[in-house]
């Protein structure tokens, strides 16, 4: 039995090791430092250039995105600032500094259609609730609880004493309840991760059109920083829904996917 438990522990450690975030090389790290220094010097464009090198090298890091968003805002690129604050919050939900700055940026936007916490029009409120948790966190919580529940069940199976078996059974009841709750949250977050995608308008002014064509009737002009929900791709255009429920088509290049 001990051997089985040890084996399970080893497997879990192996998985954790596989999932462990890699750190960037020292050369890439230099760009981060250089970007920070440029930011301090007030050379925001140089700061952006340095941060972008890291982003282009595939670094997905909330601190990097956050600094980049700050630099973009200093340059007056509010759309890109909103985009990278949103990306920060996607990787690190609840990041207070990012939320604070994003709120400030949004106050200066032209379009005041802020995606409410409960989701946009027509979106169920649980979207907003589940989005408060990061997918990786929920995944780990679910996996740990789930593995623990199986380990307890296994332990009970191997145990020969009736009293121990009974104790382990009652230990597993609340554990399985937690597994169910964590599983529901995880499934909801996974659904949002796979099926619900958002983007931010990054051009100063773009036209929301009735169809996926540049000659289609303009429904409304929207401005940079507006968050929209992506519904479907359509040959260079994307069908989007605004938070007030209005749907239309935007050119793909005008949007930055969160």
């Amino acid at each position, binding site marked *: 039995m001990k051997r089985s438990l040890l084996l399970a522990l080893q497997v879990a450690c192996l*998985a954790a090791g596989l999932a462990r975030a890699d750190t960037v090389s020292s050369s890439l790290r230099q760009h981060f430092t250089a970007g920070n220094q440029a930011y*301090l010097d007030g050379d925001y464009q140089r700061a952006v250039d340095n941060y972008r090198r890291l982003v282009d090298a595939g670094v997905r890091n909330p601190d990097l995105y956050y600094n980049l968003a700050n630099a973009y805002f200093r340059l007056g690129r509010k759309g890109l600032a909103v985009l990278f604050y949103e990306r920060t919050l996607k990787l690190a939900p609840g990041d207070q500094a990012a939320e604070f700055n994003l709120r*400030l940026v949004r106050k200066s936007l032209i379009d005041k259609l802020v995606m409410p916490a409960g989701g946009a029009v027509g979106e169920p409120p649980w979207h907003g609730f589940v989005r408060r948790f990061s997918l990786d966190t929920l995944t780990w919580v679910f996996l740990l609880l789930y*593995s623990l529940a199986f380990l307890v*069940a296994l332990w009970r*199976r191997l145990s020969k004493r009736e009293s121990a078996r009974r104790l382990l059974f009652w230990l597993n009841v609340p554990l399985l309840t937690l597994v169910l709750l964590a599983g529901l949250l995880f499934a909801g977050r996974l659904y949002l991760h796979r099926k619900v995608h958002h983007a931010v308008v990054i051009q100063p002014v773009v036209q929301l059109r009735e169809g996926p064509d540049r000659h289609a009737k303009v429904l409304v002009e929207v401005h940079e920083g507006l968050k929209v929900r992506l519904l479907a791709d359509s040959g260079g255009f994307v069908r989007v829904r605004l938070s007030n429920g209005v749907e239309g088509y935007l050119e793909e290049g005008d949007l930055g996917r969160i």
Partner: protein
Amino acid sequence: MSGRLEHLLLPLLLLVGGTPASGSASGQIRFSAAVDRTEVALDETVTLTLTVTGDAQISASNIVPPGTGTLEIVGTSTSESTSFSFSGGTQQFTRMVNFHYVLKPTRTGKTRIGAAVLKLGGKSWRSRPIDILVVKSSGRRRGAPQSPLQRRFPSWLDDDWNDLFHSPDMFPRRRIGPDDIFVRLTLKPDLAVEGQQLTATLRIYSRVGARVVSIRWPGLNDFFVVDRDVSKAVTEQQQINGRLYHTKVIDRRALFPLRSGELEMGAVEVDVDTSTSPFYPAQTMHLRTRPRRLTIMPLPGQDRPRDFHPANVGQFSMAAAVDATRVALNQPITFTLTIRGTGAIQRIRPPAMPRLGKFRIFDSTSKVEVSNRGALVRGSKQVETILVPLTSGQLTLPALTFSYYDPSQGSYRTLSTEPITLQVAASQEGTDGGSPLVSHEVNLVAGSFKPIRFESELSVRGMALVDRPFFWPLVALPPGLYLLVVLGLALRARGQADTTRNRMRQAWLLSRRHLRKAARLAAAGQAADFYAELKAALVRGFEARCSQPLHGLPLNEAARQLEEEGFAEQLVEAWRTEVENCDFGRFSPASSRGEQMQQSLARARKLFKTIERTRPGTEVRP
């Protein structure tokens, strides 16, 4: 002639039908009651007609309506006809007045319409009661005759104008003149100053059935225009030049003159569908108001405040507030300035927040709420400004002033807010702490943002865990592990069960173990132990091929059992010889040399090979 006179007189007579009847009864009066049906379904109506014939003036006030039992009165109307005759040089006329009551049943069964009473000149007449049978809803609804009211009102008039036409069976087909229907535009007040509200009210006057189709206003470029809601307007009666009209407000606009001087206002054009009879198609009429010239006075120059804006005309109040008076450094606060009152709320210019060195000020946003009810434009304008304190300590937001011109008082007024004091704490949660001046990130002095991050592991968060290839195997691992263990336990339990098969397998394994040990002992030259092990191997080895254990049986018994199990006699004899040989070797080990032990071992192995490839009952030579 009489018909034409009737057309002209009857509507007026009916419209003033509510006035008390004058004159006394003269001549003979006949009073009767009749219904259009005596059996009625629940979804139908029955019409009771009270007819008064005579030469007296009769009005509704002379009639005491009958009790209607379970029937409910849903409509009334009156019709009247007069006939003139000359007899012997004397003019006589006979009047017949019909009072119609439309009754709707409320439940099935028999009911009775009681006697109606006509009171005239101190006398009274009673009609006879009428019994009515109310039955359940029937399918004859479509074919059933409609009540007089329903017949009189075509469906195209079923809108909010219906109340105009509740006595119009007096409107037979005739030509509709400009005196029958017209529109008027009123502008109040008569004299206004620049920016003051003028209320333009469009009213229709009609003596015929009418429905407004469209309203076209002239260009109002010299005005700021706010539409007013007239959906709740009611129809009234008004007498003009001795004629009674139904009148109703059909549109209203608040006009705020954008300049002073003589302003022209063109005619308002209204298209109306009119009808004098339900039996003839509607006639569209084009109505116009007369153009107007307005004199707008300039705003007085005397005592005009310096901060006054010409859009600020009306009556207003002002209030200022912040969402928090105790804040942390760099923490934004919202300053809200609200102006309420009557006037062109959308146009007014609230005071702007002055430059404040100790605050960073973001662009303001404004929100306007205006009620569309009532003649006067009322509402509020709310301006929100985000302020971020850049230094700690006690900071003050200065008083703001707002000047406007009050037309009702004919003077300028100035409103002022109170200064607001803020307590700004030096530290701020989530920032580097302390004053931004001593902070690591000095560039934040000019800003309000949370600073950038200098320390970061800069770990690469690649794709999400769920998108990595090992994720689903990882999910499958705990149940897989559990199943493996359970399966192993089941197999183990099966192997430990006390069955013949297990016993034979155990015996075979044991015999092999004894044989290996015997080989080691032979090599070591330990004869006694060697023969003991070899015998145990021989017994266990053959036992593994038997259904019954041999261990512990005397040799003869064991040999007999082997024969019973079907082993060849020759094989059993060879086994017995070897076992006896082992017993001999055990008890006289000194006589056994190494070579003999090796030979015994070889023979035993040969026996094992034989029983490995044979089954009991087969003749095999050892």
